């Protein structure tokens, strides 16, 4: 079977698009982003709600849970149970598994009686922020946001 051949005059070339200017612009943009962007970690949120001074008529049926953070980093629940050991300044974050287990128990108990779980955190003034955040982090893991902070000292 005979095939039709497309007519093309001798010496005629395919039309070509000059893309060099496009490459220039693309490189320019690439260099701009390479220079201006910095690989920086995003900051995330860990939120708590401090109690207001409005008194309630119906006291919660479940007692609040007291957590004590000592200056050396020890974490004590209900004045007796140590759920986290001493941590000097500059220590890595601690997940506090024992505290999490205690908090989970307490949350289930409060939810069972339809009460809002309230935690009182008493942190020593000399304690470091990372240890305090470890505790708030453990509270966030069981979705407890109502935290009462005690041991406020007056302004300097």
């Amino acid at each position, binding site marked *: 079977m005979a095939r039709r051949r497309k007519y093309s005059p001798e010496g005629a070339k395919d039309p070509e698009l000059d893309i060099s200017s496009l490459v220039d612009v693309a490189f320019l943009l690439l260099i701009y982003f390479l220079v201006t962007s910095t690989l920086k970690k995003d900051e*995330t949120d*860990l939120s708590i709600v401090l109690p207001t001074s409005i008194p309630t008529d119906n006291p919660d049926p479940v007692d609040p849970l007291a957590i004590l953070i000592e200056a050396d980093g020890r974490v004590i629940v209900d004045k007796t149970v140590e759920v986290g050991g001493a941590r000097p300044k500059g220590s890595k974050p601690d997940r506090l598994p024992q505290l999490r287990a205690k908090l989970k128990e307490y949350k289930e108990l409060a939810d069972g009686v339809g009460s809002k779980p309230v935690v009182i955190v008493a942190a020593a*003034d000399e*304690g*470091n*922020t990372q*240890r305090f955040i470890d505790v708030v982090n453990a509270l966030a893991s069981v979705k407890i946001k109502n935290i009462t902070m005690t041991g406020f000292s007056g302004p300097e």
Partner: protein
Amino acid sequence: MASRKLQAVLEEADEDARMDMSPMIDMVFLLLIFFMVASRMVTVRVDPTIKPPVADESIKPKSAIGRIIFNIHPKSAGGESKYSTSDGSQTVSLEEITNRVQKFSESRSGSKVESSLLLRAHKDADVSDIKKVAKAAAEGGINKVIFGAFKTDK
């Protein structure tokens, strides 16, 4: 006269050697799209000297609306506390924090988004400073406190 075949060979030899740039353009566009997607425009200037603590349960904020930001620096060698505004340009006292928070919450009265205090405390700052700033903010009318943190320490 040269044959047609010979003519064709001679014509081909005359053409300039060209480099195929299409894979390079592909790569450039790929990198460009990566940086355009991965980069984030900084909308709130924050003090880079503050190294927040690490909390794996912390969450990425959906919006930064309704927040007043204060930094808590680690205690100086002399044991002095230092608090500053978001970008660290101004040092503020506890009284100023209360006043600023009060003005901020008044200016946002009627807003749908609850006002909150974003505390960017350095991981080595003293807890006493957190308590003081939280108390100062509560006196100014904001009782929702958000701690700035990193999801991982890596």
